[in-house]
């Protein structure tokens, strides 16, 4: 697909970008080992398990024997990833010219321990005697989504948000960087990336924001490795359980406030103690598997007559749909709109591609239509693509026209000169070449004289 990806696929790319020292230190935390293992491609996970009780290096050649013939590319990807994350270290014997791999010993020890004791929680939840009235899981999820939508609305359009979260405006500026562009005295406008961001699913959006949050942490004097390890640890807490805030370090207490604004945790205050309750968003943090692993309930029905019904009361969804369709009317739980040529042209002008719109419609298809294949009518998807290609019918390119050649020989040799020839008319001895080879062509013709 043509569009620029504005996020690194997941968190683990960031982790692997950490310096070796920090990375090795991270592996002392068993939760990080677990999260890293889970983020690996399936084959890589398999290799780690296979090596778990082997302490000697294994020859690369003998690893290849585990494979079937057509699995080599996956094998390569898996090994690259493992080496990049320093889970495997490469040992090359220059004399025999053999490479072998060994599992990171700290990593190995932590995982072995995990096999014996099973996965345990990072900290004990508080007893229900102190924390009366914990929110139900549904309430919690609703809370998280509401918080997240509020944050997104504020991010895109500060004026529209009904209530402002406590995220400092400087933090907000950081998040908005790249998503919004502001010219002098004009209202901020969404950039191409901003539109793409809105069309992503919640998980991907969360990753983007968290990534910005982390990469900005150094400026605020926070160690990014500490931050990463805390975020990963948080994702291993049980959703919906209360945890005492006092078990956190000072540094973590600071961060948890920001996370509460994003909807990752809910903070509650008791008579004496206060506690935090991780939401589903937090547990999704370590789910960096694939885009599909946490697909949400869809809400959009597209009909073959280009009308679109969206069962949603969310303001954010309405704003997103408005990006590429004409909203006709809105009922309490339903948004009705139409996909029109004009609305799509606006979208294309803003840098949204047809593929993005189609994949958004498909991913958010209402469960009733999601069962059908295709979930969005073919004539609609085809038409969206056609309208996009309409815009690309004419391609502009700088070019130079040559005529008045002294002889046919010169003309013909000039035609054969380079691949930059765009058009020729041998009768009238005229030709058009690409702008970038004009200089070469001029040189060449001068020498011919």
């Amino acid at each position: 697909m043509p569009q620029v990806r504005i996020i690194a696929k997941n968190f683990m790319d960031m982790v692997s970008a950490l310096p070796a020292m920090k990375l090795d230190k991270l592996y002392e935390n068993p939760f990080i080992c677990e999260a890293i293992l889970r983020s690996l491609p399936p084959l890589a996970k398999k290799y780690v398990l296979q090596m778990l009780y082997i302490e000697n290096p294994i020859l690369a050649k003998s690893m290849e024997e585990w494979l079937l013939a057509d699995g080599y590319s996956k094998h390569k990807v898996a090994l690259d990833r493992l080496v990049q994350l320093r889970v495997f270290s490469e040992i090359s014997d220059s004399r025999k010219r053999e490479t072998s791999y060994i599992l990171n010993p700290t990593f190995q020890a932590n995982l072995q321990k995990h096999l014996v004791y099973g996965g345990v929680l990072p900290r004990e939840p508080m007893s229900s005697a102190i924390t009366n009235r914990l929110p139900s899981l549904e309430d919690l999820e609703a809370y998280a989504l509401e918080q997240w939508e509020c944050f997104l609305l504020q991010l895109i359009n500060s004026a529209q948000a009904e209530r402002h979260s406590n995220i400092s405006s400087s933090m907000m500026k950081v998040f908005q960087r790249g998503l919004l562009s502001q010219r002098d005295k004009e209202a901020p406008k969404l950039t191409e990336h901003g539109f793409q961001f809105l069309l992503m699913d919640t998980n991907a959006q969360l990753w983007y924001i968290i990534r910005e949050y982390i990469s900005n942490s150094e400026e605020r004097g926070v160690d990014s490795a500490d931050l990463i390890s805390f975020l990963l640890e948080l994702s291993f807490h049980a959703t919906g359980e209360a945890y005492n805030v006092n078990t956190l370090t000072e540094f973590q207490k600071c961060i948890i406030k920001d996370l509460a604004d994003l909807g990752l945790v809910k903070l509650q205050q008791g008579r004496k103690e206060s506690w935090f309750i991780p939401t589903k968003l937090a547990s999704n943090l370590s789910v960096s598997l694939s885009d599909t692993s946490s697909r949400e309930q869809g809400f959009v029905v597209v009909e073959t007559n280009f009308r679109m019904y969206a069962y949603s009361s969310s303001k954010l969804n309405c704003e997103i749909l408005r990006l590429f369709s004409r909203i006709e009317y809105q009922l309490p739980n339903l948004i009705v709109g139409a996909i029109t040529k004009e609305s799509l042209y606006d979208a294309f002008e803003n840098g949204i591609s047809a593929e993005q719109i189609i994949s958004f419609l498909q991913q958010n298809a209402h469960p009733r239509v999601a069962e059908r294949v295709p979930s969005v009518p073919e004539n609609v998807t085809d038409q969206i693509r056609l309208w996009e290609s309409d815009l690309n019918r004419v391609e502009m390119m700088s070019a130079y026209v040559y005529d008045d050649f002294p002889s046919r020989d010169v003309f013909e040799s000039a035609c054969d000169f380079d691949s930059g020839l765009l058009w020729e008319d041998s009768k009238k001895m005229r030709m058009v070449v690409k702008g970038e080879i004009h200089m070469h062509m001029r040189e060449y013709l001068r020498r011919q004289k």
Partner: protein
Amino acid sequence: MSPAPSVASKLYADDVSLLMVLVDTNPFFWGTAAANSSSLSFSSFLSHVLAFLNSIHLVNQLNHVVVIATGFNSCQCVYDSSETTNRISDDGLPAVYLKLLHNLEEFVNNDEKMCKNDFQTGLTSSLLSGSLSMALCYIQRVFRSGPLHPQPRILCIQGSPDGPEQYVAIMNSIFSAQRSMVPIDSCVIGAQHSAFLQQASYITGGVYLKPQHLDGLFQYLSMVLSFNDMTLILHEMQAFLFLCLAVWALTSTCSQMQTVFATDLHSRSVLQLPKPVGVDFRASCFCHKNTIDMGYICSVCLSIFCEHHKKCSTCGSVFGQPQADASKADRKRKAPGSPRHPRA
């Protein structure tokens, strides 16, 4: 964004698995195993199973594991990872495993009680057909719930010999597993090969493995000794003693089980896995439940009989009298490689 989510695949794109583990708890098998010092004891066996479960949970938090105990007379689901959250109980053991062990103990006791009611000598096979159908039903239930479901597979860990009387039921389960694309992996820890499981894995595309050296699997067992402090705790918990030992024996890992059976369906397409050496396609007759090499087959419903009958007991077709000189030609050998679908 990944293209083509429109292809309405309800399976996860990744390696998320639903694993049904069928554990053989047949007292006859484990009784003889205990008497024989070279084979493994039930507690060390359990330790391997638990470590295996841990490793499955370790690789993906969305992995869903269900353990079904296959007894002599009954079978029961003893552990379901979707129902429990893991936390340390007051005793210091993971609560999940306490629950599993507790359920298992209860199950074994109940199973034993039923045993006394109708005890038949000579039959020592487990109720594999029951647990297989239970696993398949569970998988169907998961298929019908939720927008996305994990890739299912079944792992049978079987020690006791095949029960020929379950032939029809087991074959039916195997074919329904094949239809719903559920591979059946089998790990045979008993003395002899299991023809049922060989066929099951062959037909459904699973892995059949009979570890050659059981003692080779347990090279790490000696390390249990270093867990002195933990065994102390164990003495306080007499009730669970025989099972709990298992938990602390976990330092050992049954390497074969892990490396072969932990492989998710995603990676199976690129890895070398043990190939079946040979598959025993012999069937059991419907009349006496004996395993036979040659027999009579009803031409209408494909029922198998070890001797000549006047009428098919399944579909009621009337057979002609076998002619004395043509009796050899009548006897059909079941062609290997093309197992027929028996109808019960």
